[in-house]
């Protein structure tokens, strides 16, 4: 497996604020990776540095084998779709034509069919487009570029659920036809979760989770049922969160459950539900350290809460 993006010990400081703190991440070529975390966690800063639009304070960045900043050879093979991308004062078709000049793999047929899907008119002035339609234009350019490295930073501001589903479906379809490296930052984690082969979670400038999406399934499980049974089942296990209501309790147990565990839970009358990626990110974001790929995040034992 070759590496498309590699970042080592990357730090980006602003006056009075560290946006990225010794970030080390590698992204395999030809994979779709989710870049997740809260607003202000450092996702956009990382993407801007990968796109050569910002410089690191220290550390190294390599995209397609070379530092991206001011590197024409790398930048032409990469597309970066920003949230609320600004455009010059021209029409949609002018933006598409400019993209067709810049990106060597530009696929006009794909762009046209995406335009039709989003109901985006080529003769519209970009400044008159709604926020959602401007997002759609960014997506058309991001997919139409068919760039070896495709960076999407919250690409769907203002898009409704139907339009977002079009984006996911078209991304998967075109990725299947032309595999490439996609890094997608989003806060709509659950609806995008199945797109990802890998997941990187950033919190306060640090990588707190870097794992395969499959590996994360079952890393933690919500166990719920009668308090006594829940406590019996989770005794000796690390837990993240314990909530009680009357005689019922709900606990997040950390660690994979095997078939014997499941059988035991059934016989105790307990319900087991795996943490969704979104729930996992909520918990992972509170973690102080950066576990390696596919490692179970270290548990934070919490006290009883009402």
């Amino acid at each position: 497996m070759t590496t498309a993006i590699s970042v080592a010990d990357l730090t980006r400081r602003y006056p009075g604020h560290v946006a990225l703190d010794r970030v080390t991440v590698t992204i395999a070529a030809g994979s779709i990776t989710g870049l997740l975390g809260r607003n202000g966690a450092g996702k956009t800063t990382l993407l801007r540095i990968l796109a050569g639009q910002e410089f690191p304070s220290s550390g190294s960045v390599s995209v397609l084998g070379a530092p991206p900043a001011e590197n024409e050879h790398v930048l032409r093979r990469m597309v970066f779709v920003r949230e609320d991308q600004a455009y010059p004062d021209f029409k949609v078709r002018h933006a598409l034509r400019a993209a067709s000049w810049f990106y060597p793999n530009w696929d006009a047929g794909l762009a046209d069919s995406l335009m039709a899907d989003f109901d985006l008119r080529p003769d519209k002035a970009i400044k008159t487009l709604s926020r959602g339609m401007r997002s759609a234009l960014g997506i058309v350019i991001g997919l139409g570029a068919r760039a070896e490295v495709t960076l999407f930073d919250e690409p769907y501001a203002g898009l409704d659920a139907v339009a977002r589903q079009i984006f996911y479906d078209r991304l998967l379809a075109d990725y299947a036809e032309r595999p490439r490296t996609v890094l997608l930052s989003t806060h709509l984690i659950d609806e995008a979760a199945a797109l990802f082969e890998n997941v990187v979670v950033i919190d306060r400038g640090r990588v707190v989770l870097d794992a395969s999406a499959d590996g994360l399934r079952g890393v933690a499980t919500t166990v719920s049922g009668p308090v006594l049974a829940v406590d019996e089942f989770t005794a000796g296990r690390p837990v993240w969160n314990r909530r009680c209501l009357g005689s019922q309790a709900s606990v997040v147990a950390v660690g994979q459950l095997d078939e014997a565990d499941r059988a035991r839970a059934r016989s105790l009358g307990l319900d087991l539900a795996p943490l969704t990626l979104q729930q996992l990110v909520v918990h992972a974001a509170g973690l102080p350290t950066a576990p390696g790929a596919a490692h179970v995040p270290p548990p934070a034992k919490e006290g009883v809460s009402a």
Partner: protein
Amino acid sequence: MAGLDEGAPLFAQVAERLAAEIADGGLAEGERVPSTNELAAYYRINPATAAKGINLLADNGLLEKRRGIGMFVAVGARRRLLAQRREEFVERYVRPLLVEAARIGIDGGELAGLIKECGHEHFSDSEGGVTV
């Protein structure tokens, strides 16, 4: 993601769905199974995840690869899957049924009666073969 959830990893669920289709006869032995990209588009999942699901079944000998054409249901796959399902039947259905019955105070005799009653409705117009 079209109706995939539960605790198992997505690739295992894809494998499970295909296995269920083979066991139910929806995919006949010797028939071509959907490609990785077809599965990815249908379930709205990453193609690598779909490929892992298919490979899981291929590794178990339930699917066989025909070079350049795709994956096909292996001969004997259905029989093997049905045998496996029978083994799982007790763990998956009978035991949870007994646990729930005990929890709401249904005793053994009552439970047997209920099963008989439901079975009568369920099997009355079939040919009598207990298909699960």
